[in-house]
């Protein structure tokens, strides 16, 4: 039944390459995205500067740490925003009625989506995230962390990407049932913006909101790698939050497998 691992990986690499070519076609929108990222970094930096002039000791981290955090939040959007997830593709295939073609491929559907998605993300990381981080280092006083924090950051970012993929994949599966991705995407986007700590760090959330944001998985996507980067989660704390990410990866993986099985059973009955 299941093809051996070597074949799977080679197939994955092929999808990755394919996606690279797909994305490199749209050069204009790449440049526009770069300008957008630049403008956003510029303005979030100023927002934090204005806040810190009024009251420098609220967040418990220095202004340059805070600006690094905010700038990072803008830069990572290029790979972590749900619009780059597989759910749009899945919905499009469902709408056109060609999803069967994807399901019939002799490769695990989730792995297929993952490889396809990672191809796009790798390109976006190389050509959007890295250049904007370098620009941020020279223009917006992005701090460079020490080696342990940097290593932790990249480990954590890899986990973020996987968690973000699982969440988006689950949304895609749900869209197969509801036949509408727009509203699901919309609601998810809003919740993610709020509870991921992308714009406003979660540790200044008051009372119950802080507690809720700690329980939800959304902080795994932005807040954890970003906090590690600026050194707010160092040493044992760093290992602990990485552990939190691992647990969520496991949970989401199991859940998405189960959900996939159920949804596919349904799709087949509907007349595949």
């Amino acid at each position, binding site marked *: 039944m299941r093809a051996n691992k070597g074949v799977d990986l080679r197939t994955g690499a092929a999808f990755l390459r394919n996606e690279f070519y797909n994305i490199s076609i749209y050069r204009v929108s790449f440049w526009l995205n770069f300008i*957008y990222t630049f*403008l956003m970094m510029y*303005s979030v930096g100023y*927002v934090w500067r204005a806040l810190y002039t009024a009251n420098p000791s609220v967040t418990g981290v220095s202004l340059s740490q805070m600006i690094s955090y905010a700038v990072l939040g803008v830069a990572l959007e290029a790979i972590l925003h749900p619009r780059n997830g597989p759910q749009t593709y899945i919905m499009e295939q469902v709408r056109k009625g060609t999803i069967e073609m994807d399901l019939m491929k002799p490769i695990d559907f989730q792995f297929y989506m993952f490889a396809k998605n990672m191809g796009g993300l790798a390109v976006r990381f190389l050509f959007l995230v890295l250049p904007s981080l370098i620009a941020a280092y020279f223009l917006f006083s992005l701090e460079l962390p020490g080696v342990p924090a940097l290593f932790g950051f990249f480990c954590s970012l890899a986990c973020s990407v996987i968690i973000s993929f699982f969440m988006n994949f689950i949304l895609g599966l749900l869209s197969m049932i509801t036949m509408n991705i727009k509203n699901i995407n919309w609601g998810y986007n809003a919740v993610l913006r709020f509870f991921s700590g992308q714009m406003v760090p979660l540790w200044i959330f008051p009372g119950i*909101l802080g507690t809720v944001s700690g329980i939800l998985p959304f902080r795994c996507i932005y807040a954890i790698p970003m906090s590690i980067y600026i050194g707010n989660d160092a040493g044992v704390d760093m290992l602990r939050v990485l552990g939190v990410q691992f647990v969520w990866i496991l949970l989401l993986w199991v859940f998405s497998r189960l959900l996939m099985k159920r949804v596919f059973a349904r799709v087949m009955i509907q007349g595949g």
Partner: protein
Amino acid sequence: MHNIRLYGQFLRVAVLGKVQYKADFFVGIVSVLVLNAVNLSLIGILVYNFNTLGNWNIWDLLFLYSFWMLSRGIYGVFFWHLSDLEEMIVSGTFDAYLVRPASPFLQFIGKDISYTGVGDFLVGLLGFFLAAAQMKLQWQLGRWIYFVICVLSGALIQMAVNWIGASLCFWTTRSGAAVSIAERFTVLMQQYPVNIFGKYFQIFVTCFLPVAFINYYPSVVLLDKAADGIRVWQYFAPLVSFLMLAIAAFVWRKGVKRYAGTGN
């Protein structure tokens, strides 16, 4: 006169088309409310912790945001579909407007209305009265009139900016990416007082892309936020809106002529 009646007819058709989908309407409104709640809560959390942002306290910021939402609501209801132009040109459906005996702009603008604007407008109204009550605003009639005019001109500025952006399709076919980036950026911008972003930025959003006249300068005037007295040009929001409209109409006219001229 004839054009206004015609536009009214178009809108009636558009409304009749919309009310077919009641569930969609409610989901749309709810999602707008959620998005606004998220935006406002994030600002709220920041100001809750820091007390003030560039000398604007939480109610000032709510006023600023609500002002934007009121004008955005009006803009959204009538002009949200300006961004459809790209798709219409690519698919060729725009050509139908050129052969009918009515202004292409009127047909295009009358083809649709959007209810998400209603949600924005309601949020704006609620936020405005909340902020006004908290700040104990006592306005003379003149200020109320200026307020209403500025909300309308804010809507027109947003319309003009998007109209220009959409018209660029006549030259480039694709302008959606640029417009959506401008939109995402202004969404962040309009939530904060412009003066915190530094001098060059302020000059840019005042003189070149005058989005600061949508809600920032009217709020400065109405809340007396200028530290060293209000300058005359800070009252200019209505003038700016007419200027922008004139530019937009000019660009559109050129664009349609060019489009029709190449023999589609």
